[in-house]
């Protein structure tokens, strides 16, 4: 029992960076913009979070800085996708390449340094609930913030006027435009805020999870998040489910390595990626049967407003 609880608690912790990235991407994709640059944005978030925490001695300043810089970096992708109507797939890849490069270039000075980082803060009262408490409420504040974000976004996307507008812009920009919505402005806002939240995922890795910076430390988590958005059918609650599933695989694999299993490490390291593919197949088969909804209808398509002469 102890063992199960500790693995599940570790699953929540290692799932949190992926969860932030997935939630951020859901916001962006809901507006109709496909952003494949998560890996790069997360790396920039991770480096910003770490370096600012190190310099200021305050992890929260690092996390806030990561949000701001992440938002602005994603704006490059937004500008190319929204204003310049460029190819969103390639622009996202450029973002990944750029973010990987910039973070290793600037991050070189920070390799080998450590920070105290975010400390564990048991959630009062709730942490004493048996089973649930130690799994979900014995973490740092960013984990609780991610819970809040899941609940908030679920409500925001479905039940608020702005959420409705966001979905309208992603589903049918032309209709949204006719309704009097400013398509480009809403898309830019989604890119800014979503990008910032994606960067929080990176910052969580460096400030709370590893408490240090290493080159390319995201190790594909950004891409896993892209897959999770599809798995979650753009639904924040399902995103949490998926992120913890992946966190669980990571925790399980680390535990297995520590016990000195005879399975070679490289094969264990494949697990999350194999799982991603399996999950995608599973989801896509369901989609073929018409189970999928929630996908923004105009995802990845630039909106061109023809003006009549």
């Amino acid at each position, binding site marked *: 029992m102890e063992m199960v609880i500790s693995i599940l608690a570790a699953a929540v912790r290692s799932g949190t960076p992926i969860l932030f990235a997935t939630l951020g991407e859901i916001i962006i994709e809901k507006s109709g913009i496909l952003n*494949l640059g998560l890996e*790069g944005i997360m790396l920039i978030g991770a480096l910003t979070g770490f370096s600012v925490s190190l310099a200021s001695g305050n992890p929260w300043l690092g996390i806030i800085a990561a949000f701001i810089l992440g938002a602005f970096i994603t704006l*490059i992708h937004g*500008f*190319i996708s929204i204003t*310049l*109507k*460029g*190819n969103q*797939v*390639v*622009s996202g*890849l*450029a*973002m*990944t*390449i*750029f*973010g*990987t*490069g*910039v973070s*290793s*270039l*600037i991050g*070189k000075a920070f390799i080998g340094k450590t920070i105290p980082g975010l400390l564990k803060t048991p959630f009062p009262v709730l942490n004493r609930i048996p089973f649930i408490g130690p799994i979900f409420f014995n973490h740092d504040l960013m984990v609780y913030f991610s819970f809040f974000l899941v609940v908030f976004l679920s409500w925001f996307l479905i039940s608020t006027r702005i959420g409705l507008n966001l979905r309208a812009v992603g589903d049918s920009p032309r209709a949204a435009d006719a309704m009097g919505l400013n398509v480009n402005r809403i898309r830019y806002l989604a890119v800014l805020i979503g990008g910032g939240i994606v960067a929080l995922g990176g910052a969580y890795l460096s400030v709370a999870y590893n408490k240090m910076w290493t*080159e390319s430390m995201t190790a*594909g988590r950004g*891409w896993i998040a*892209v*897959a999770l958005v*599809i798995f979650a059918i753009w639904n924040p609650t399902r995103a949490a489910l998926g992120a913890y599933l992946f966190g669980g695989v990571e925790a399980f694999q680390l535990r297995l390595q520590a016990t000195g299993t005879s399975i*070679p490490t*490289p*094969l264990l*390291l*494949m697990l999350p*990626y*194999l799982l*991603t*593919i399996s999950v*995608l*197949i599973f989801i*896509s*088969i369901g*989609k*073929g049967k018409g189970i999928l909804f929630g996908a923004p209808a105009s995802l990845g398509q630039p909106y*061109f407003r023809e*003006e009549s002469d």
Partner: protein
Amino acid sequence: MSIYFRINKRTSSSWLLSVFLPFISVLLALIGGSIFLAFLKVSPIQAYRGMFQTAFGDWYGISETIVKAIPLILSGIAVTLAFKATVWNIGAAGQIFLGALATTAAVRYFYVDNRGIMLVIMFLFAGIAGGGWAAIAGYLKARWNVNETITTLMLNYIAIHLADYFIYGPWKDPDSLGFPMTAPFPEAARLPQFAGTRIHYGLFIAIFFAILFWFIFRYTRWGYEIRVIGENPKAAQYAGIYYLRYIVLIMFISGAIAGIAGMGEVSGLQGRLQHGFTAEFGFTAIIVAWLARLNPISVMLVSFLIGALQVGGESLQILMRLPIASTLVLQGLILFFVLGGEFFRNYRIRFIRGDER
């Protein structure tokens, strides 16, 4: 009185812009990159001059640039083929790994002491392995519409760990003093190199494929059908093009070419499979393909330029102690500027004074 501007789609693309866009993009990227260099207190002019001199300053530099260009051409063609059909194969890196693994397997288990025969065996192994790896994603896409961007990428990570498994495990050279690498290939399993350089005969394979696909795209029905699939998959189906088979086939061939790039690296260049064998150029191939506007002949030219950028980047690492990933910054910027620049090729912007409205 204020000035407004209107954006209209261009009816015909400007020839002049198409030619100059890549050059302007590279130039702007270099300027953008200089901001980062200045941030690190490195003189951009000195850095770029160093890069240029290393890549083009002498015959050795040029030969090294060609060495880098060989796998870029091959994987660039691989990506071009897939992108033409709007199949987002971004897993060239994984397919390269599989090609390298299969080449090594051929040397280990099917060794023939005759260079000609051995090279053909390795070529087939690398092609089938890289192609098969990519075809997994192709089949999933065609059968259940599984997003190929993600599957090809996940297959990259799996391939890297698979290679590690063999390099650290069953294939590790017992005489390597613990270094994670396979035993060196025997002479018959090496692609020959030009005397005095590291340029290997993979160059001929690369040029052959570039010309072959240029011809296919331009003159054959098959090349035409790939374009139709890319532009409008539904119309392709109505026109009787069998989508499923095509996607799998395109992915297979795309992956096969990338796999052969992997063979060139282990058989022509390194002579063994070792840890740290990177297929980073699998990503760079995307930049190459896009910069070349999916034209196989341009892929050769662009590969040479990007190869020079990489050779120059390595000099930054040695001379200025910058991490090798610095060139990624430039590559990302180039791609951003190319994408941004395409706007000016596709759209016409007219400025109009307020009172004309």
